[in-house]
């Protein structure tokens, strides 16, 4: 399995799990389906980009950094979207999104068959 597939699979899986934890916030339980779909898609995009990066650069540190940055960026985009209640959950979405991105970045570096890589320290 190549690194992009690893990113897509783990991004989707971890994104879905992250979205599912929204159930612990009663105010948004009515929107669980859309939250999980959105979180899964967010995870897949982060995973895709992290996997692509991992095919080019063989560095766990930079993989984690990039995953974190992507996770944070997309989590911000989701948190900033207009909501039915008008409330935004920046902290609740961005902080976990940041760490999920880091995990996906790490996993794409460790797993999957590499492409032609440029080795860094």
């Amino acid at each position, binding site marked *: 399995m190549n690194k992009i597939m690893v990113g897509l699979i783990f991004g989707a899986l971890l994104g879905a799990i992250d979205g599912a934890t929204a159930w612990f*916030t009663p105010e948004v339980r009515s929107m669980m389906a859309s939250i999980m779909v959105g979180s899964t898609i967010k995870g897949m995009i982060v995973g895709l980009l992290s996997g692509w990066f991992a095919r080019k650069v063989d560095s*766990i540190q930079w993989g984690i950094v990039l995953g974190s940055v992507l996770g944070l960026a997309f989590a911000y985009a989701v948190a900033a979207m207009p909501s039915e209640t008008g409330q935004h959950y920046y902290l*609740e979405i961005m*902080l*976990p999104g940041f*760490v*999920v991105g880091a*995990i996906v970045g*790490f996993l794409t570096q460790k797993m999957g068959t590499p492409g032609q890589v440029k080795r860094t320290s």
Partner: protein
Amino acid sequence: MELSDRIVRHLREVVDLPDLSGTRYELREELGRGGLGVVYAAWDAHLERRVALKVMDVEWAGEARLIARLEHPGIVPVYEAGTLADGRAFYAMKLVDGTRADLFLAGDPPLGERLRVLERVGEALAYAHSCGVLHRDLKPQNIMVGRFGEVYVMDWAVDGVAGTPAFRAPESAVDERSDVFAFGALLAFLLPQSAPPALRAIAAKAMSAQPEERYPGMPAVLREVERFQDGLAVEAYDENPWQRVRRFAKRNEVLLWLLGAYAAIKFLLFFARVI
């Protein structure tokens, strides 16, 4: 006229020196003595380079032919072999600029470096075994660690060589498992006091008194060492559950930290909202 002990000693040394007339080598200095011969540093006048020259009785000349058959980065290359004017056999080989494995430990190298040297030795042995050649006298004194980290296995013994007691397998019949025994003894020798029990178990299994209880060959031992370095369980060592957990945690340290960070963030956010 009486000769002093010093003069007699000097005369003996001179008589012992190899007669290199007819060869392209110029003697420089004696490097060491073993059971089978003497090794000198010499100058190759044709190629203008330093070489090592091993001089021995003709009956041991098979050693040169043995090594010359083996082409491996861990086996010192033989440049030439022949017979000297004084009737002794010689072979010229690469002069390794480095230190013996037993002296290499004086620098207290880290475990990773010790295992690296050991693996290079194991690879050379595995290759030799695949060519039907046994070492028969593997020991730290027969391993050179070069200045740039290269590792050479030296002094390949021919039939009839008994080996060194501390590294010699107990059985009289010699085969690959005898070298496995010596390799296990070498591993035990190279390990620091604080070595993990899994590595000691690998050495112990390689040094089992019964050949059938040892690893079947060098590739099997090397795989075990590689598994240890990858943080995987080794066949020789029976872990308890706690050791298994610790090994898993060490192998997946970064991932566990990240998962822990995620759980901690979720936990804190949940309680911050509740409070």
